[in-house]
């Protein structure tokens, strides 16, 4: 039995299943990260002297690495949407190449994040050090897990998942679009995380 509305849009909402599903999922993700940002604001406004000296300085020193990561994610967002655009134009090989770039850039992001974490640990800064470090590791760690999840999905769509292009190209294109929406959201979270954690401390 075929699942309806995987390609054709529903008459009531004008959306296909995947797009409605991903937007509802992203709404829940907004609440997840929103709760963390809210926690950060709440904790920060209750401290008379902010930031904690060592952590604040360490994060300020890391801002260049974080800036590079910002560029990496922004470019990966472009390559992700270009993958969708290539599929809309029927250019499958171009789409695969853009997906590969997205995956590689995500890998670069994770490597830089690992280097950053290592530098913190080597200076004796860990989640239990103080509130700022707890928030830093929690928020960037959760964000990093989202990057990893996205990498798994992109990897699948480049690997076993790409067979769908031969049988149901429109449905495959929709999957890329939906993955792209998730990826842009992850980029969006970083756009707010970067100044909040690295620049405003």
């Amino acid at each position: 039995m075929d699942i309806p509305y995987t390609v054709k849009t529903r008459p009531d909402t004008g959306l296909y299943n995947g797009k409605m599903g991903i937007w509802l999922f992203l709404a829940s993700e907004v609440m997840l990260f929103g709760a963390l940002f809210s926690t950060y604001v709440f904790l920060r406004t209750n401290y008379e002297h902010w930031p904690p000296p060592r952590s604040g300085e360490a994060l300020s020193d890391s801002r260049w690495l974080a800036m590079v990561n910002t560029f990496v994610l922004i470019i990966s967002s472009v390559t992700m949407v270009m993958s969708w655009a290539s599929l809309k134009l029927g250019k499958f090989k171009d789409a695969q190449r853009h997906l590969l770039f997205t995956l590689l850039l995500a890998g670069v992001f994770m490597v830089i994040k690992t280097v950053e974490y290592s530098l913190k640990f080597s200076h004796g800064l860990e989640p239990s050090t103080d509130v700022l470090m707890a928030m830093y590791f929690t928020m960037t760690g959760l964000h990093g897990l989202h990057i990893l999840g996205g990498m798994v999905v992109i990897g699948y769509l480049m690997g076993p998942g790409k067979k769908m292009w031969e049988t149901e190209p429109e449905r495959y294109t929709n999957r890329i679009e939906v993955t792209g929406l998730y990826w842009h959201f992850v980029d969006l979270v970083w756009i707010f995380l970067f100044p909040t954690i690295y620049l405003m401390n």
Partner: protein
Amino acid sequence: MSESNPEAIKKQVKAYIGVLIALCFFTVFTVGVTYFHLPTALALAIGLAIALTKGSMVGLIFMHLNHEKRFIYASLSLTAFLFFVCLLVPVMTDKSSTRMDEHMYHTPTPAPEASNGH
């Protein structure tokens, strides 16, 4: 987004590149502003304004929110409202008079060594 017109897609690709350049510029600008040592409130306002601008560009152009369906707009509006409730209510309703102070950073004094009992 479901346009299949090649010309429309190519036009959008130009928009994607334009947004990429703008995002890179604003990222550098955000870091540059930190070197001016502005008052905290002003620095926060500028940082937030830049982040919102960048976020809007990602949402409107990359996520195609500039021409989405009403269901999406309605869902996101509700989400945005609840997000602000989540963000602001704890801060605005906090009646605690104790502030988490410098004593939180105080390095604890090592406990005195236990005597051997001799």
